[in-house]
């Protein structure tokens, strides 16, 4: 080999090495341009059945077990973790503040706006508003509601609020009383809710007057008295809330308590949601129960305020069954006019129902003429 050829080879060799040293490291980009698929091996047969098998188990795969018991074949049920997160977070930590917020709003309203007083002095004339049955159903349901709210809240936030006060043993005694009372009063409340719906749905069909009532904001802030029939727009909203929330809370409550009582869900009810009785459904029922009842309890504070301290003359309607004509004229003008036309106003001193006294009034001249 001539020295010139040797030199040439060395020079080209060095240049090639230098050039490749720059270019070859860029080879990885070819994967980018060709796409990863071009280089990937067939992975189908390479998936380890074992690792993914166990991964599926963590999602709640059902297996066989000789042990009898509900869902005993499920090795890992992931639903509880989600339930726990929602219960500890949104439900126990934030929702109960809704009641506190409502209380503060009512207090401020009462301090700034003051009591909703009757515009005219009482004449002593009355109108029958609620029958004996209406009032019985209302008060049984209302007292049950308060008992259920107190015992239910004890179980939800008692660990945070009451254990520091009562100690663990003291609170456990109260919690045992709470859960027993809650489970026994619950069905009573359910009957109350159903009766309320049947008795009062006829008064609570929405109509055009309600729209006018809502446009004026119910007169809550303006001190005006928007038109209303037997029930005003706000009362109708409350009725439908009681109906919907009541049925939801009662149904979910019964679903949670049924397995504990060993009651099987009947076949005809299986189309209903939450009736499978599985852990997942009990978790869902528990969440619906807690969310709905907490929101409902907050709004109920408003109903309690308006019906007692908030409105002069409102409480006597549900307590005695009679309201003053001044109250009726002010809050339910259309209803008042309707009853006035039918002659159902009870004059002071009269204790009979107006229709009977009207009959007597009519029959009296007849006997006198005889």
């Amino acid at each position, binding site marked *: 080999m001539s020295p010139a050829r040797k030199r040439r080879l060395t020079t080209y060799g060095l240049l090639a090495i230098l050039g490749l040293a720059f270019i070859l490291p860029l080879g990885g980009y070819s994967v980018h341009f060709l796409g990863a698929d071009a280089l990937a091996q067939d992975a189908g047969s*390479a998936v*380890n059945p074992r*690792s993914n098998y166990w991964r599926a188990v963590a999602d709640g795969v059902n297996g066989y077990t*000789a042990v009898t018991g509900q869902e005993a074949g499920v090795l890992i049920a992931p639903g*509880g973790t989600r*339930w726990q997160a929602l219960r500890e977070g949104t439900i126990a930590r934030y929702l109960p503040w809704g009641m506190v917020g409502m209380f503060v709003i009512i207090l401020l309203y009462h301090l700034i706006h003051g009591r909703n007083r009757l515009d005219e002095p009482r004449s002593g004339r009355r109108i029958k508003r609620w029958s004996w049955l209406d009032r019985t159903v209302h008060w049984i349901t209302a007292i049950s509601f308060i008992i259920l709210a107190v015992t239910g809240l004890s179980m939800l936030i008692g660990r945070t609020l009451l254990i520091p006060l009562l100690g663990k043993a003291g609170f456990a005694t109260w919690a045992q009383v709470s859960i027993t009372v809650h489970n026994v009063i619950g069905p009573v409340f359910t009957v109350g809710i159903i009766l309320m719906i049947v008795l009062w749905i006829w008064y609570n069909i929405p109509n055009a007057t309600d729209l006018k009532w809502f446009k004026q904001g119910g007169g809550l802030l303006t001190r005006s008295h928007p038109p209303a029939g037997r029930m005003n727009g706000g009362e109708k909203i409350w009725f439908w809330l009681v109906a919907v929330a009541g049925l939801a809370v009662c149904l979910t409550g019964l679903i949670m308590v049924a397995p504990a009582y060993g009651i099987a869900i009947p076949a005809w009810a299986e189309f209903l949601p939450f009736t499978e009785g599985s852990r997942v459904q009990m978790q869902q029922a528990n969440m619906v129960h807690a969310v709905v009842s907490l929101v409902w309890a907050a709004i109920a504070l408003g109903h309690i305020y308006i019906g007692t301290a908030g409105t002069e003359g409102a409480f006597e309607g549900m307590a005695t069954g009679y309201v003053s004509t001044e109250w009726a004229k002010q809050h339910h003008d259309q209803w008042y006019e309707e009853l006035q036309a039918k002659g159902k106003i009870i004059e002071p001193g009269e204790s009979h129902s107006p229709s009977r006294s009207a009959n007597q009034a009519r029959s009296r001249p007849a006997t006198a003429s005889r």
Partner: protein
Amino acid sequence: MARMKFLCDAERCIECNGCVTACKNEHEVPWGVNRRRVVTLDDGKPGEKSISVACMHCTDAPCQAVCPVDCFTTTDDGIVLHDKGLCIGCGYCFYACPFGAPQYPQQSSFGARGKMDKCTFCAGGPEEADLSDAEYEKYGRNRIAEGKLPLCAEMCSTRALIAGDGDEIADIYRERVLRRGGRPQTWGWDTAYTEG
């Protein structure tokens, strides 16, 4: 400090249910309650696997977090115990537990759930151990206080179920896996080296 753990080797468990029987007999567990159960996955198919499962004595246990009366205690050994004197049978631990450990005997006046029962790692309740009849009736045998390990693991014929200090158990299991040698048996091997 030891951190007590159960470990069930799925390559060894033969679904004899010896652990279930041992537990039931040792603690005289109420009718209808099984503190331990064996679950077989893909039963009857090639590659079926059995696993014995009970309370896993979780760190940061969900049952403990959701209990309305705060009746759970984690001992210094990492065993999750519950106080049956406080339990009100509400069922929340049963909702929260991923392993189905908490169970309820049907008893009490209104037919409602009784006090929750679950695996105690053979360590009784959170109260001071006194090895009395009252303690036995409430929680079952307190073998830990007697210086013994859980009976289910002690009785396991194939040594699939092992119980004790987490570090020691991990060592035993690691040694087994290495001795078996077959790589696909190692958890995640194919995901790390073969998949995709």
